[in-house]
């Protein structure tokens, strides 16, 4: 790795590790949100940036993961570390079905994307009527004492949640970094660039695309588990909505699809700008919903039109960080 990049990475890691010691609770929650978006963005990036499949229905895995673990905790008292296996299992099965159906029936491009949306929407409406987990009224987890840290049940302070999310995000980063330099990374990128040529070189495209989809779903499911225990309430309208899926993809697209740093940069940029804008609007005394999303839309538009590779590649060149 480029020495400047390594130095930057080390500095960033150090900063993230000590952040809770110097920051106030607002900043910590903001940082947690950035890490959450970086993590889910990285998970989505696996499927899009590496295997080239555009999914606009990732909220499905988020929601199923969240509801899976939450239901087990709510009804049976089973903690998230055990419950996450159900969460992952369910998401993986859904992703596998979706992938199998799509690839077996040759659905690609915009049709594939529409299929992912349909699955997520179906889940949203379905869970609205799924009364065992609260239906449209929502599922609520018992909120324990906030100053007692029970990591086994993921009950505790915002600082605890920050470090959990940091661990997840760091893990995702490491996984993707390893992937890029190993067989899956090479094979996925080959499939993304030219599937026919990849097959001629002995790559079983179906199997590898499935692997991408399933891995992406499993990672996203974990984020769902985190979400459930962090916010302590789940509503189908919220967690399965297409807005959630869009939120997941904004970071990687703006930061740079297929890059390692892209999702992180994108997540940070978007959250900080959105937060700044909301503060500004509040300071001006307006109470206007939709400003944040409007800004997201404008940034997305600008990036897609002027910087199609995302911000990171251009930035990396400018700062002399690429290999």
């Amino acid at each position: 790795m480029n020495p400047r990049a390594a130095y930057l990475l080390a500095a960033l890691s150090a900063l993230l590790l000590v952040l809770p010691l110097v920051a106030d609770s607002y900043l910590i929650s903001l940082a947690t949100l950035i890490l959450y978006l970086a993590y889910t963005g990285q998970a989505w990036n696996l499927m899009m940036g590496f295997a080239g499949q555009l999914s606009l229905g990732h909220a499905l895995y988020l929601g199923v993961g969240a509801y899976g673990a939450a239901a087990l905790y709510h009804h049976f008292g089973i903690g998230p570390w055990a419950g996450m296996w159900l969460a992952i299992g369910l998401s993986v099965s859904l992703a596998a079905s979706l992938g199998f159906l799509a690839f077996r029936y040759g659905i690609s491009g915009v049709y594939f994307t529409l299929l992912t949306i349909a699955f997520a929407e179906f889940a949203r409406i379905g869970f609205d009527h799924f009364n065992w987990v609260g239906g449209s009224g929502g599922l609520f987890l018992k909120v324990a004492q906030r100053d007692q840290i029970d990591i086994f049940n993921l009950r505790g302070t915002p600082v605890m949640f920050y470090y959990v999310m940091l661990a997840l995000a760091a893990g995702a980063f490491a996984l993707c970094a390893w992937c890029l330099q190993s067989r899956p990374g090479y094979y996925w990128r080959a499939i993304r660039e030219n599937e026919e040529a990849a097959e001629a070189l002995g790559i079983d495209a179906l199997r590898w695309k499935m692997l991408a989809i399933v891995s992406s779903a499993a990672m996203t499911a974990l984020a769902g588990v985190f979400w459930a225990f962090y916010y302590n309430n789940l509503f189908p309208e919220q967690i399965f909505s297409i807005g959630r899926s869009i939120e997941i993809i904004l970071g990687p697209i703006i930061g740079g699809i297929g890059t390692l740093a892209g999702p992180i940069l994108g997540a940070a940029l978007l959250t900080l700008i959105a937060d700044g804008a909301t503060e500004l609007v509040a300071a001006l005394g307006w109470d206007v919903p939709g400003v944040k999303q409007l800004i997201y839309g404008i940034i997305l538009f600008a990036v897609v039109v002027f910087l199609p590779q995302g911000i990171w590649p251009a930035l990396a060149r400018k700062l002399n960080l690429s290999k």
Partner: protein
Amino acid sequence: MNRGVQHYTLSIPTKGEFIDFIVLANVLVSGVLTGLVYGLMALGLSVIFGVARVVNFAHGELMAVSMYAAALSFAAFGVDPFLAAAPVAVVFFVFGYMFQSTVIQPFITRPDHAQFILLLAVAIIITNSLLIVFGPDARSVRLDYLLESIELGPLLIDRGKLYAALVACGAAAALFAFFRLTLTGAAIRACADSWLGAKVTGLNVKRLYALTFGLGTACVAVAGCMMILLVDLTPGLGPAYTLLAFVIVIVGGLGSMNGALVGGVLIGVSEALAGLLLAPSAKSMFSFALLIIVLLLRPRGLLGEKL
């Protein structure tokens, strides 16, 4: 319902009740009429997606804008949406033409997903701009002369729905006529069949794509002016209609204008039935299930060409 008319019962049990045949018939008719307006909206997408090859993920949002335009002109100037339809359509045509030729044109050579995301961005911008400008409260347009329903035998037909459906049919007919009977229409159809062939024979493909996009947008404009009479308007309608338009176009068959209308009616009827037999909130679930089934079993849709 009790006006001295004989009740016919049909044994469709739902939650232990039986459905009155007349209720069912009225619901079906209502579904067909609404479906025709859906069909016009989908026709716009079919033209845009099928010909100009634009994955218009902002389609429903454009419809929402048109609905706001109609609602505004009614509230501010008392203009009847039936009258507003034509000028709104013209404005939308111009906008569509310019939008395609300036913003979308460079994306034709770029990978599919880039275009998709571009229009997604546009959709987000539109929906939230509407939210900021108009607020989240619902609006509607109520015309006095539409309050009375029309009696057709035992059926009770909503006047507004009927007129809206008629206008939708008229607009669709005009579009069909354009494509069948004019030279430009033929040129556009040629473009759809073969981009390269069209270029080679000297057709100005760029201009035709822009024209097509403009026509599609105009369709959406008319559909929106009609839809405001049928439903209450909120900024969140945009995304829902975008998805609905895609479902209809895919179910009906991409590249088939007839398919868009047939698909629209089919979805309108199935929504109406689902609303009656299941819970009202489940009606779009049915549409999505239909989309999934069609994508898997018959991707070219009912009337589309083989993919």
